[in-house]
């Protein structure tokens, strides 16, 4: 093979990426166009009506945007108290030891479990507990979905945070110890401030994962098309409404679902882009 052909083949294959990504945006925009045109872009985003009665069709994305934001936020709150200790365990306290490598293997495996199995576990194990605790009568709620979601994003947040915690220079830590600090004080006053932006960016990426998670949420959130008025009530996320209704939808409803997909795509793309840029910055400094 000569060099010229080699270069052409490489370049041509690489063109797949812009074509695929461009195609995604193009397809979503053209197919969502009907819904936006019919309801108006802003009206679609801010309306909370979702009814598909023939002739009186009315679709708005607000309940699902709210559902997605709520599940993600609650999941994040439950995730931090576990992912941060895991990161400290692996990246600082037991850095480089066998226990640390076992723990990081286990969390990596958590990331590998298919989301439908998380959903099953949530449905058959967690849901009865939620019912028994009288938190929600059917056990399906924003909270139920968020709890499982929290477990699902622990590995994403902890492995990247641990990487940044590991990168804190030993010089700085010894400097702090030499001034008489305890380990806890070194972690609070040196490790966290220095690794802070990196840790933060790993949570941004974890949020990116949680926003688009589909099956788990679909199986646990209760699938009602209303704005959840508390974390114990049922609802739907953007991903779960699509999973629920895409197969049976056509016409304006299909277009509305695709429009929700477009909004979800834009939100996750933005969050991921911010996260990646932050990680690059944190790595350089």
């Amino acid at each position, binding site marked *: 093979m000569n060099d010229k052909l080699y270069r052409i083949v490489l370049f041509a294959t690489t063109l797949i990426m812009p074509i695929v990504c461009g195609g995604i945006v193009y397809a979503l925009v053209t197919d969502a166009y009907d819904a936006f045109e019919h309801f108006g872009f802003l009206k679609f985003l801010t309306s909370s009506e979702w009814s598909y009665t023939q002739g009186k069709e009315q679709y708005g994305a607000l309940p699902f945007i709210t559902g997605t934001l709520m599940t993600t936020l609650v999941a994040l709150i439950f995730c931090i108290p576990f992912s941060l200790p895991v990161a400290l365990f692996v990246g600082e306290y037991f850095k480089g030891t066998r226990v640390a490598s076992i723990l990081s293997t286990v969390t990596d495996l958590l990331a590998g479990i298919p989301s439908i199995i998380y959903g099953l576990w949530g449905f058959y194990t967690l849901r009865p507990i939620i019912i028994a605790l009288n938190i929600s009568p059917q056990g399906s709620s924003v909270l139920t979905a968020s709890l499982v979601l929290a477990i699902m994003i622990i590995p994403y947040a902890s492995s990247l945070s641990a990487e940044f915690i590991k990168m804190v220079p030993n010089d700085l830590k010894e400097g702090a*110890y*030499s*001034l*008489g*600090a305890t380990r806890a*004080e070194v972690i609070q*006053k*040196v490790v966290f401030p220095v690794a802070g932006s990196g840790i933060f960016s790993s949570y941004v990426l974890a949020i990116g994962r949680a926003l688009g998670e589909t099956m788990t949420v679909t199986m646990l959130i209760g699938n009602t098309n209303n704005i959840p008025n508390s974390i114990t009530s049922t609802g739907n996320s953007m991903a779960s409404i699509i999973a629920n209704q895409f197969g049976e939808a056509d016409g304006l409803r299909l277009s509305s679902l695709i429009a929700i997909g477009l909004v979800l795509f834009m939100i996750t793309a933005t969050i991921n882009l911010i996260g990646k840029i932050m990680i690059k910055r944190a790595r350089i400094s």
Partner: protein
Amino acid sequence: MESVTPILEFKKTCVSYTKQTMAVKYVSATIEKNTITAIMGPSGCGKSTLLRAVNLMHNLYPNIRVDGEILLNGENILTMQAIDVRRRVGMVFQRPAPFPTMSIYDNVLSGFTLNGIKLSKAEKDATIEHCLKSVALWDEVKDVLNKKGTFLSGGQQQRLCIARALAMKPDVLLMDEPTSALDPIATKHIEELLLELQKEVTILIVTHNMGQAKRISSKSMFMYLGELVEYSDTETLFSNPVDERTKAYLTGKMG
């Protein structure tokens, strides 16, 4: 002869990394108050290891063992709480490492912050001014105290780290090749500074550089393969070394 006050005493101090290898072997020596003592020797001779034993840096690494005694004002530090010892024994490292997330102001005060000691604004300002003046950095940074310490030059950063250690008013200041990462001019500044500082604090300095030891120290140790080979007045050690190994080192046949 003026009477000497011992401040630090090594009594058969040993440091071992694993069961077989001893990095420091049975070092016994007495350090006088308000002097500069230089520790010399070829690389790997255990000089940094000995120095780091004094503020219990080895406690951070579970597989390092320190045996024997190290007395600070008569108390054996090996049986004391590390955080207590480290406040009384300051340390300056090879590479200047001011805390990158803190301003110059906060860097000088970091010892207090890290130890959870609250100071009033007036106390803080006084400490800052005193410490930065004693490391001759005050005039250069007094207008940029809120800037990050990492913007300073290498020599300035190292002086900031010395100020940081001095702020805790230590009895002893340990310096682990503090000028090896600096250019000759910055090195000269630091050396002049140390000669001034010995009035306030006892300095134990590890150095690679024989000239430096000769210029600043009143006492010198020569270590080889973990042993303290020779310890005497700097002048005597340089002009009239007793041991063959010291002679070899000083004449450049070793290290």
